[in-house]
Structure formats: structure tokens, C-alpha cells
């Protein structure tokens, strides 16, 4: 039996009818046409599907869509302010933190969630905050540098 739920995604309300076994990843990608959220494993292991749910980064493949009913969700599509990139996104571009880009949406959201709580994280704190997001391409260094640099920009 499908259930009607309300999802508040990127400051917009959506009413959707979902089957109870559908994950938030699936509903975002397929029903709301927001495929920026990636699915790398569908098992909670890789972090590619990270979204921010009520101020906390979560693996959306582990969240049932019905569990997100009436809650605030930020996906990668909601990070930039129109044509203006968020400082984290800008830093990712400038520091070469993006290779294949499949981990990037999740990385950006994990970083955003970190910097919202901790304006001036140490390198270790950054690495810890990103440790649930796997990246096979970059070796993480340029991602960490980008987050560090974004934190400096955001303080100003």
C-alpha cells in the first residue's frame, strides 16, 4: 500500500505517494527527479547517497522515504544559491577535489554539515567527518584541502 508523505527538500515541499519499502535515495532520484544524490552501494557503506536530514548527514539509502515524512532534507541540488556556488563547492572546483565526481555530492554535504557545526575544523576533524564517504579517485587530499579552504572563506 502506498502512503502519501510530505518531503521538505531544499526548502520546497513535495507530496508523494510512496511504497513503504522505497528508500529516500530512490524517491529523491526517481520520484522527485533529483538524481544528484548518487547510489554507489545501496547498503550504507559508501556515502555517495549522503543528504542532510534535519541537520545531520545520513546515508539516504538506509532511510526509508516514509521515515523522512515532514522532515527537512538538503540534497546537492539545494547547496548552491542559484548560480552562486556555495564556498565548499567553489573550493572543490578550485582545488581539484573532483575527479569522477561520483562521491562529490556526498562529500560536499558531509563537509557542509561539518562546517555548520565546526567553523574551524582541524585536518583530522575534516578527515573524520568525511570518513564515511569513500572516494576511489582522489586519495582525499585535495578534498580535505578544499574543505579547509572553504572553512577559511566562510569565516570571513
Amino acid at each position: 500500500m502506498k502512503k502519501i508523505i510530505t518531503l521538505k527538500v531544499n526548502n520546497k515541499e513535495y507530496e508523494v505517494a510512496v511504497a513503504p519499502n522505497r528508500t529516500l535515495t530512490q524517491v529523491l532520484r526517481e520520484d522527485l527527479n533529483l538524481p544528484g544524490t548518487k547510489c554507489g552501494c545501496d547498503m550504507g557503506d559508501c556515502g555517495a547517497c549522503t543528504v542532510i536530514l534535519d541537520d545531520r548527514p545520513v546515508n539516504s539509502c538506509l532511510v526509508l522515504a516514509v521515515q523522512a515524512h515532514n522532515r527537512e532534507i538538503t540534497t546537492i541540488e539545494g547547496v548552491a544559491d542559484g548560480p552562486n556556488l556555495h564556498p565548499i563547492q567553489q573550493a572543490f572546483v578550485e582545488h581539484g577535489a573532483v575527479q569522477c565526481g561520483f562521491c562529490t555530492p556526498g562529500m560536499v554535504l558531509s563537509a557542509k554539515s561539518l562546517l555548520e557545526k565546526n567553523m574551524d575544523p582541524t585536518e583530522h576533524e575534516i578527515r573524520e567527518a568525511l570518513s564515511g564517504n569513500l572516494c576511489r579517485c582522489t586519495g582525499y587530499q585535495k578534498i580535505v584541502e578544499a574543505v579547509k579552504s572553504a572553512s577559511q572563506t566562510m569565516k570571513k
Partner: protein
Amino acid sequence: MKEYAIINSRLPKVDAWAKVTGDARYTDDLTMPNMLYGALLQSPLAHAKIKRIDTSKAEKLPGVKDVVTAKEAGLVKYGVSPARYDETIFCDQKVRYIGDEIAAVAAVDLETALEAVSLIEVEYEELPLLLDPFEARKEGAIAIHDDFPNNICAEVHQEFGNVEEALKTCDYIRTDKFVNKKQDGAFLEPQSCIATYDLNGNLTLTSSTQTVHYVQRTVAMVLGLPIGKVRVTKPCVGGGFGPKASANTIELVASLLSMRTGRPVKMTFTREQVFQHSRARHQFFHELTTGVMKDGTLIALKNVCHMDGGAYSSFGIATVYYGGSLLGAPYKLPNMKYDGYRMYTNKPANGAQRGHGGVIARAAWEQQLDVIAEELGMDPLELRLKNMMKKGDVTCNDFNMSSFGMEECLEAIRDGSGWKEKKGKLPKGKGIGVACGFFVSGAGFPIYRSETFHSTAMIKLSEDGGTINLYTAAADIGQGSDTVLTMMAAEAIGVRYEDVRVSSGDTDFGVDLGAYSSRQTLMSGHAVKQAGEDVRNQVLEVLSRNLKIPVEDMDIKQGLIIFKKGKVDFSGLRSQYIKEHRGWVDAPSGDELTFKEAARVAYFEKGVVVGRGSYKPGDLGGKYKGAAVGTSPAYGCSAQVVEVSVDMDTGKITIDNMTDAHDCGFAINRTNVEGQMQGSLSMGVGEALYEEIKFDAKGRVVNPTFGEYRIPTALDMPNVNAIIIESNEPNGPWGAKEVGEGAIMPTIPAILNAIYDATGIRVRELPVTSERLFMAMKEKNKK
């Protein structure tokens, strides 16, 4: 060094904006109207005869549009090397590994397709299992493929110089064995594709692939379509590292289902299917015998290698050659003998992964060289410097080091890491290690025998002259070829980076063999450079006729025409341009004639302004059998120093520092080069310390998840001191050559050598998990 306007800089990647905002589209993000979803039935047994397949229940399930087995798909054989086509779309008589494909369903949604798959009945008769490659080649073992009665898929025997004679002259000889475990590519994006067959008989296949060209050929051949009727295109690809470099099952199955149903069909692997499909790093068993003189001069190397190939050949024929040929450098080595054997087993097929075939051989040998240095009382870095090849040297197996900054690499890491202050002076539990490596800059020959160009490029100017469209079939899989080729086009023409718009990864754009063997910067780069110069010359020639100024007196820089001999009156051209574009926002202005205006003049004369480029390597060395694997127009090389800490109570290893120098000839994009180095090193760290595909007694992969197949996280990787060495390769565009794969070569042995320095223990089995090291330390303490 010459100053360049665009290349050798740190421009952001062309696709970075799309990728940070979530706008970038990967295959599984795409849908087509009326699209069906495909699902596979795969074998639950590793070796069995198929007695009966009954698809009737699946066919009756509402929502199912098609069910196919070998009966419908046919039995055309395919694979990677034409010499070993040993796969069919579906298994016919027997299955050879857990995951082997038996049937597929197309249905209106994925759930229905999966349910239908579960309704297909298959009756099996189990056959003896062969999971161990040494068991597989024993007399009397059952043949996994009828054509290969002893299960040896391929063997190689090569000798350069005379190893037995040479060994007799050596002061010191030692033999060591080394083994790794089967690995996984572990790219983040699972393979996915959408096939669309239209009423005109054209098939468009959108796929997460590294090689649109090879996929096009394979799909056309297996499905009996003219090559020209098959178009393969890739959107963004979420990493590949080798396993996506050949046609896969879902590409063929989705195409077949689309042809039969007349509707688009999407198929996407689950993460478990990625592990089952595999085609990643083989398991290698090396036995190396090296002979040297007292002063450390290398004299001879004997290399015997057995490889666990898995159920099919995939890239294996090339792999078994690379397992030998990639030890021919970077040291002067007059005598080398190689015997390689690749065995079939009832496991997922192994193929190519970053550093194809050479990574484990390199790990084994560089560790052995470390032992030899110690036995001779030499600094291991000095031993390497002493034997190092130089620019212009040719290896015993005929590889020409047309540029080779190996010595510079070694000196850079020695000084950059503080080697002299640290080597031999670190406390127990801390260690430092060094290793070197080299790699091809593009396979010298295509996978199938052919006179084909390896890369073509086309540059077409928009009629207003303002946009430069670059078309290439090269594949950006994250490594940044779109960026590098865009920069090259802009540099060759003399325009700005943002004036060039790249369209790539599509067989309609030309021929490019794709992203494998670290070939695109050099090979696709040559084609793009040529196409850019062609366009530039065409525009200047027209302009020359128009303004009556010799071509030599003009230049193009940053999108402006430079008149070398002083001011020229071009007001006629300008006012015409402005008149024609009244109302547009980008009217040319300023004191200089813009490229846009000049290109518009060329358009008036020619209608179509297209620059063309095509590249294939010239004559490469090596006339012996197998010389095609390893010969390349150029070779990249690198050296690394790694520092580790080992917890002497638990065996836990922490990588503290990595210093890496890589000779990429000339860095087109410095940030990208560093990114390739850092990424290679992290893959090496994973392979050295964690990564191992495990099987149960039935041949099932027991850890097909990122939870249990562990790759490095942000907490495992240290920062890398990445040092770029530029040796100016004469065969590369602007002197550029590879970095994407060569950089992984020294990583594993440098870690092993550092572990030894910290603990006194030589580990000859990968991965060096803390458990394995702990047991080895315990063993040693007992003695």
C-alpha cells in the same frame, strides 16, 4: 622553458561545476520515455552443467515484456583479445563461476523484472570445482573450457639475453616468492547502460564505459549489426580503473532486449554484481631470481609467474605478457627470462586494473632489490640510482626510453623526504622505504590487429566564430581528459579555455581507443593538437588573403589576433561583424581583432570550418612474439618514499608520509597530474594493506560490499608530497606522457620496504593486514 597561455597551469576542470552542483549526469541518472528495466539471472553455482531452463512462469508474469536465454541470444563468442574469445552473452551448456549469466528479463519496472528472474527455473548438474589455479593445471583436472584441456588459458615464454649463463657470472643471486590477492576496481559508480533500438535499425547504447570504440565493435559483432548502425556514447562515468575497459554483459543484454522489444532498456549492476563481474586485478604468484655483482650492478632476472585468471580470458592475454615485460625497466638489465601462465578457475574473471599486469611483479621485485641492497651493504636508494636507465636507453625487451626522468625522480624523493636523515636512524616501529616504477604511455597497438588510428579529433568553429567545438571519442572517466584536451585545443589555436566546448566519449565523434593503458593525454592529445593547429592555420590563411598580410606576420593569443608587424586596419571586418550581430550581447570591441571576427571571415569563405587530427604511433621496437604488449611511444616513471609506523603489539600499520615524484613528460594540468598521483597512491595503499576478495569453498565471493572489502578512507591516507618531474617527451604532444597508472607502481613495494625497516619483517603475501603482520611478528619472536 617556453611560456604557454593555457597548458602547464592549474585551470579548474571543465566538468567541475556540473559535478559539484549535482547537475552532472551519469548513466543511471538518465531515463528514456517508455523505458524498460532489465535484470539478469546469474548462476548460484560455480561449475555446473545446465540441464534445463524453464522460463514459462517468468514470461507469464504481468509486466514482463521479454525473457531471453542463450537460445534467443545466440552463441557468438566474444571477449577482449580476438585470440581468446571465450564468452557468449548467456551460458549455454554450463556455468563457470557464481554470477555467470543464464537469462535476462525486460519488464516495466525493476521489481517486476527481478520477480520474473526469480521465477525462471534452472536445473543444474554440479561439476567438480576448480578454485585453485595450481589444482586447475594438474593432470586430469576437469576442463573449464573444452578448448583448453589443461586449463591454461595462455602461457608466455620469453628470454632476452641469456639468463642461465649470466647468472653464472653473478656474485650474488637470490630467489623470492610473492603473492597478492584478487582485487576489485572499487570505482564508486556501478556499471549501468541504456540501450535504445529504433525503427531505422540504429542502436544507441549509453553506457558507463572507458572505451566506447571497443564496446561498439563488440556489440555490433555479437548482435550481428553493421558497426555503423551502433552508436556507443558515455555520459559522466564514475571511475573505471580498468574493469570498464571492455564490453560487459549488461551492454550486450540491454541491446538485445531493446532490439527485441523496440523499447529502451536500462540495466544497472548492484554492488554485488560489480564484484561478481570483476575484470579487475588478477592474483599473481611470482617467483623471482635476481643476480647482481658485488657493486650492485644488476645482471639477470628470471621471473616465473602463475596467474589465477578466473572463468574467462577478459584482458588476461595482455596481463600475462605485462606480468613479465613490465620489469624490463627502469633499471639497466641485460638478461631477462620470463615464463608466465594464466589459468582458468571457477571464479569471476580477472582483467585489467590500474598498472595492468605490472603492479604485483613490481612489488615483488622492488622488495627483493631492497633485500639485495641490504645483503650487499648498500643504501637501497643508491642501488637504484646506480642501475637507473637514462633517456635514450633501450631495454633488453626493446622499449625505447625516449625520455626518462628517473634519476630526477629519485633525487627529488631523496631530498623531499629527508631520506638521508631518516634511513637507518628511525626508532623501532618506525620505518622508511623506497621503490621505483615505470609504465607505458599508451599501448602501442590496438587490442585487435589493425591499421586503425588510435585517436582522431575534429574541431569545428561555430558560424559566429565565438565557440570552438571539440569532438573526440576519448573517454573522461574522472581522470580529466576532457579538461586536458580542452586545454590542448585552446593552446593549439590560441584561444581562451572558456571558448572551447568539448564533446567526447561518443563513437559518432570519431575513433578513440579509449581510457586504458594511460594513453589519452599522449594519443588523443596528439590528435587534438593537430586539429587545433589545422583550424588555426585555416583561419589565418583566410585572414591573410583578406587583409593582405602574410600568415607568418600574424599569431593568435588569448583569442586575439596579434599582428607582429604593427597595427592593421581591420575596421571593415569589425563593422560588418557588428552589423550582422546587432542585438547580440557579445559584440567584439577593443583595439585588437578578435579570433571570433577572424573565424567569421573563414566561415564566409568556407562555409564549414573544421580542423582534423589523427594519430597512431610510428614504428615501435620489438619484433619478438608478444612485443605488442608493452611497447609504447613513451614511458612515464616514478619513485616513492613511504614512511610508516607499526604498532609492535598489534601489527597495526599507519602510513605517516608519502613522497612521490613522477615524470609525466610535461604537465598539461598540474592539479590533474597531482590528482592522478594521489589517487594512484591511495589505490596502492588499499592493495598493500587491506584489499582482498575472499571466497568460500563453493566459490562464492564472501565480501562483495564496501563494508567488508575495505578501501582506504580519508583517515587512512596521509597527505602526499607530490613532485612533478618534466622530462619533455619527444613523442608526446608538448612533451607530455602518462601519469594515470605509472604512479601506482612504486607504492606497494615502498610500503613493504618501510614495514621491513620498522619491524625487521619481510612480508611476501598481500595484503599486509595488521593480523598478517602480527602473526609474522609473533613467528619471528619465537625464533
